[in-house]
């Protein structure tokens, strides 16, 4: 295979800027810590996760702060990505053809912009869950806030917290698998670039957008 860097037509395309990647990985790392600490408190079978944070008490202390950090980092990321995640008409078509998506028959699907409908869906699920986790988490944060709330509300918040965490984790599992499944995605979030072929195949509309942005058509005048 010839060296792509030598061939201008094969030069890689930047998918995520260094800032975006940093932001993403902050969210990811903090999410992992939050999730394992949360899971440790969620189910006895996973209580041993608490050792990663220095034991049960540290887990209890750190978890809400980790959650806060994750929320803040996620808000920044979400703000940057907001404009790429608006649902469009073709996204609905994409979703209707879920079977083709799962079976890797991408050629049958409508052209995809920077993010496909699945990614957008995950994006909104993340927003919804993190908002729910934030609000319910404050209510059950015993050390500072719980005393301001009734026990009934605390109980409800605990349920909301658990359910939204469950949804979030499942969504993240999907998100991660998607990164493994669609080869090259991981590179996009590590090196920041994708090959033109990758972009052409998975995000053709975005590829073309990028293309026209790099090579604007000469003015007709």
């Amino acid at each position, binding site marked *: 295979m010839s060296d792509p860097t030598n061939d201008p*037509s094969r030069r890689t395309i930047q998918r995520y800027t260094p800032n975006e990647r940093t932001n993403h990985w902050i969210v990811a790392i903090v999410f992992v810590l939050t999730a394992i600490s949360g899971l440790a408190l969620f189910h006895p079978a996973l209580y041993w996760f608490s050792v990663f944070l220095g034991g049960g008490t540290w887990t209890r202390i750190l978890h809400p702060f980790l959650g806060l950090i994750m929320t803040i980092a996620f808000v920044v990321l979400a703000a940057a990505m907001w404009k790429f995640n608006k649902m469009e008409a073709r996204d609905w078509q994409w979703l209707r053809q879920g079977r083709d998506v799962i079976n890797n028959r991408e050629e049958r699907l409508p052209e995809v912009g920077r993010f496909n409908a699945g990614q957008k869906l995950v994006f909104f699920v993340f927003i919804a869950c993190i908002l729910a986790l934030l609000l319910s988490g404050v209510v059950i944060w015993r050390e500072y806030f719980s005393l301001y709330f009734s026990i009934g509300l605390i109980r409800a918040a605990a349920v909301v917290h658990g359910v939204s965490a469950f949804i979030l984790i499942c969504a993240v599992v999907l998100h991660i698998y998607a990164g493994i499944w669609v080869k090259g995605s991981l590179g996009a979030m590590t090196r920041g670039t994708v*090959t033109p*072929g990758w972009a052409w195949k998975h995000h053709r509309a975005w590829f073309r957008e990028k293309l026209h942005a790099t090579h604007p058509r000469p003015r007709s005048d």
Partner: protein
Amino acid sequence: MALQSLDIVRRSATTTASPSVRQAQTGTVAKLIDTTKCIGCKACQVACMEWNDLRDEIGTNIGAYQNPHDLTDQSWTLMRFAEYENPDKGNDLEWLIRKDGCMHCADPGCLKACPAPGAIVQYSNGIVDFHQENCIGCGYCIAGCPFDIPRISKRDHKAYKCTLCSDRVAVGLEPACIKSCPTGALVWGTKEDMQHHAAERVEDLKSRGFDNAGLYDPPGVGGTHVMYVLHHADQPQLYNDLPADPHISPAVGLWKGATKPLALTGIVLTALAGFFHYIRIGRNETHESDEQAAARETERARHE
């Protein structure tokens, strides 16, 4: 009676059975609080603090006899006072005084809610005990308790509540509050004996015109190892909002019940779905043909 046998029958955040072959053959223990004999002297409060080496704040008076104002990590029991004008007795005044504290439920909501293994245990004699060395201070027990009993210490952020003097009971003694009670409003024995004692008390109270006197041993939490004799068993809420029908909240049931295994299963299934998708369908890869197609398009764009 082998009260010294404090074998653990239930342990918080533990999915397997605790050693439970040894049972309290001579019955579980119970504290009976006879509100109709109680004079609200607070000897129990003091004896509790004294025995357990606790000292609450020297607070303020907020216009009531009740002091401290609420249960705290240092006050595991508290007299609550209510003035009630009984419409059935020509509005004669009654001073309903209730010793508040852990009820030692047979089905303890705190234990159910607790995420820290072994922080809350239930002994075979019925005592529900907190083990602070295992407590992580999350406060879930507070949300789990139908009676609003546990309190988190501001000093060490551990949860505390009445232990029913498990250390005394373990060596065959009665709890400190029981021993101190000057009027015999607090009595102690096997749960069965306490139920008999309560029945006698109820009969006596009925002879004194309290037709609704009765025993408070709420079935919603599987019965309790701290029970009340009430003059008005039909209206427990008169006694500073003693719940009429306490039970573990459905929210706690949901949170700590079926959702736990279901959620874990859901997460695992999600991961497995990915795994099998990978096995069956495989990765979605970019091929050289895609690169070439992309290159062509790039070229076209460059030359347009």
